[in-house]
C-alpha cells in the first residue's frame, strides 16, 4: 500500500508540472502582454522607463525562463497580482476556494447518499418498477444541461413558490447565519446533485446486479445468512467500487460544471471569479484559478484511487 501511494503521488507530481506547462503556454498565447495592462497608453512614460519596468518584471527574458520564474513564485504561494482587483491572486483564490469546495463536495456526497441506496434497490429488484423508474431518472439526469435545470429550479422554487433564494451565499447586508447558508445553498446544490445522480445510480444498479450473481452471494445465502447481512456485508462493499471510480471520473466535470452553476446563482466561488477574470482579461488570476482547480481535481483523484485500493485489496501494484 505504501509503495502504491508513493507511486501514485509521483505520477500526480508529473501531472502537476504538465498542468502548469499547458496553463503557461495558453496564457502566453493570450492577446496582450502583462505590460499593456500595467502601462496604459498615454501614461507619459518614456521608452527607457517602459524597458525598465519590463526588465524588473522579467518580461525581457526568454519564455522558458519566465515559466520557471512563474512556477517558482507559485510554489511559494505567490501567484502574482490581479490586474483588475490589484490584490495578490493568492488572497483572491483563498477567499473563493472555500465556497466552491463547500458546494462541490456537499453535492458529491449528497448525490452518492441518494444514488447508492437507490441503485442498490434498483439492482436488487432488477426489471421492476423501481428499476425502470431509476433508469428514467438516470436518463434525464444524463441529458439535462445543468444551466437549464438551474433556471427551472429558480423559476419554480424562487419565483413561483418564493421558498428559496436564487442568488448569493447569504442575504444581502447580513452577517450570515447557518440557516441562511443552507437556504442559499439548496438550489445550486440540488442542480449539481441532479446532474450527477443519474450516472451514479445507474453505475450502482449495474454493479449490484453483477455482484448479486456472484458465487459468494449464493454461498452466503446457502449458509442461511439473513438477506440484510448478505446485502450490507457481502454485496455493498464490492458493489461500491465502480461507483468510487465513477465519482473520480465525475470530479473534473463536477468542478468544471460548478463554474456555470456559480455564475447562475451568483455563488462567490472560483467559478464566478474565473468568469469575471476572463471578462477583465486578468491573466494572473485566470492562470491561478486554472492551476488551483486542476490541483483540486488531481488531489481528489489521488484520494479516490487510494480509497479504491482500501475497498479492494485484491488489486495488485500494477497500475
Amino acid at each position, binding site marked *: 500500500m505504501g509503495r502504491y501511494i508513493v507511486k501514485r503521488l509521483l*505520477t500526480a507530481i*508529473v*501531472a502537476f508540472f*504538465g*498542468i502548469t506547462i*499547458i*496553463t503557461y503556454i*495558453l*496564457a502566453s*498565447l*493570450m*492577446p496582450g502582454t502583462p505590460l499593456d495592462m500595467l502601462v496604459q497608453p498615454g501614461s507619459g512614460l518614456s521608452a527607457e522607463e517602459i524597458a525598465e519596468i519590463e526588465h524588473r518584471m522579467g518580461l525581457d527574458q526568454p519564455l522558458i525562463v519566465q515559466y520557471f520564474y512563474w512556477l517558482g513564485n507559485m510554489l511559494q504561494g505567490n501567484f502574482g497580482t490581479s490586474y483588475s482587483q490589484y490584490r495578490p491572486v493568492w488572497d483572491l483564490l483563498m477567499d473563493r476556494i472555500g465556497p466552491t469546495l463547500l458546494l462541490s463536495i456537499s453535492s458529491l456526497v449528497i448525490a452518492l447518499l441518494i444514488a447508492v441506496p437507490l441503485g442498490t434497490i434498483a439492482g436488487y429488484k432488477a*426489471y421492476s418498477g423501481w428499476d425502470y423508474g431509476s433508469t428514467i431518472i438516470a*436518463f*434525464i439526469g*444524463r*441529458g*439535462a*444541461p*445543468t*444551466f*437549464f435545470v438551474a*433556471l*427551472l429550479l*429558480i*423559476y419554480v422554487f424562487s*419565483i413561483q413558490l418564493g421558498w428559496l433564494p*436564487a*442568488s448569493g451565499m447569504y442575504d444581502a447586508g447580513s452577517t450570515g447565519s447557518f440557516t441562511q447558508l443552507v437556504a442559499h445553498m439548496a438550489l445550486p446544490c440540488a442542480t449539481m446533485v441532479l446532474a450527477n445522480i443519474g450516472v451514479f445510480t445507474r453505475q450502482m444498479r449495474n454493479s449490484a446486479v453483477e455482484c448479486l450473481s456472484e458465487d459468494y452471494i449464493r454461498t452466503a445465502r446457502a449458509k442461511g445468512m439473513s438477506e440484510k447481512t448478505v446485502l450490507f456485508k457481502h454485496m455493498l462493499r464490492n458493489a461500491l467500487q465502480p461507483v468510487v471510480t465513477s465519482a473520480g471520473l465525475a470530479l*473534473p*466535470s463536477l*468542478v*468544471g*460544471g460548478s*463554474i*456555470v452553476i456559480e*455564475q*447562475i446563482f451568483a455563488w462567490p466561488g472560483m467559478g464566478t471569479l*474565473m*468568469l469575471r477574470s*476572463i471578462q477583465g*482579461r486578468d491573466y494572473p488570476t*485566470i492562470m491561478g*484559478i*486554472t492551476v488551483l*482547480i*486542476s490541483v483540486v*481535481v*488531481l488531489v481528489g*483523484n489521488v484520494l479516490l484511487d487510494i480509497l479504491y485500493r482500501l475497498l479492494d485489496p485484491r488489486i495488485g501494484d500494477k497500475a
Partner: protein
Amino acid sequence: MKQSKTIVKDAYLRDTIERFTRHKMAVVGLVVLVLEIVLLFLLPVLLGSKPNEITPYFSAAPSAEFPLGTDTTGRDLLARLLYGGQTSLGIGLLAVLVQAIIGIPLGIIAGYYRGTAEVVIMRLADIFNSIPNMCLNLVLVTVFSPSFWTIVMVIGITGWPSFTRLLYSSVLSIREKEYVEAARAIGTKNSTIMIQYILPNALSPALVAFTFGVPSAILSESALSFLGLGIQIPQSTWGNMLNAAQSLAVVATQPWMWIPPGLCILITLISINLFGDGLRDALDPKTKVG
C-alpha cells in the same frame, strides 16, 4: 473469396441492426433524432424563417404570427430556434470529429507501440483530463476569439483524451491477436498493420465514443454560449438563446425566451444517449439486450 467476405459482412450488419431494433428506447431515440433533424432543416424553408430580421415587436409573447414569441431585440424566436439547432448540432458533430481525428491515432499509436509512446501519450491524456474541460474551454476561447470554427476547434482540442483512452485499451487486446502477429511475422510495415488490421477492429468502440461525444460537445457549446463566451449574436444557437435568461426578470416573466431552447437541448441529448446505448449493445454481441 470476395463474395464470401460480403456475405459475412452482410450477416454482421443484419445481426447488428436486429440487436439494435430489439432495444426499443434506442429506436425511439433514433426516430426522435431523425425527426428533429428533418424539422430543423425543413421548417425554416417552409416557413421562410428570417432569424436575424428585427421586427418592431420586442419581447412579444407567443402569438399566431410568432409561435414562440420574439426576443428582446424583436427577432422571431422560432426562426432562431430552428437555425440555432442547426448550429448547435453542427458544432456538436464537427467538434467530436476533431476529437476523433486527434484522439484515435494517438490511442492506436500508444496501444500498438507501447513503451515511450505509451507513456508520453497516456500521461498527456491524464494531464488534459485533470484540467476540467469547462475550465480549459474558457481559457481557450479567451485566447482565440469565439466563432463557429474556433468553438469547434476548442471543444475538439479539449475532448480528445476520451477517444485516446478507449482506443488505447481496445488496441492493447487487439495487438495480441494472431492475425496481427501473423502480419508482423511476414514483415508488414507497422503503419500498414495499424491502418489495415488494428483500426477496422477498433472501429466499434470508436463509433460508440463518437456517439457519446456528441451530447457532451453540444453541452460544452451551449454552456459557453450561455455564458456569452461562445457563438456570438446575431448567429443563434440553443445555448446563446438561453443567455437571455441570465437576467432574473426574463426567467420570471418571459419563460418563452428560455424554456424552448432548454427543452430542445434536453430532448436532443436524451435521444442521442438512448441511441448510443442501443448502438453500444448492438455492436458488442457479448452484452445482453435488457
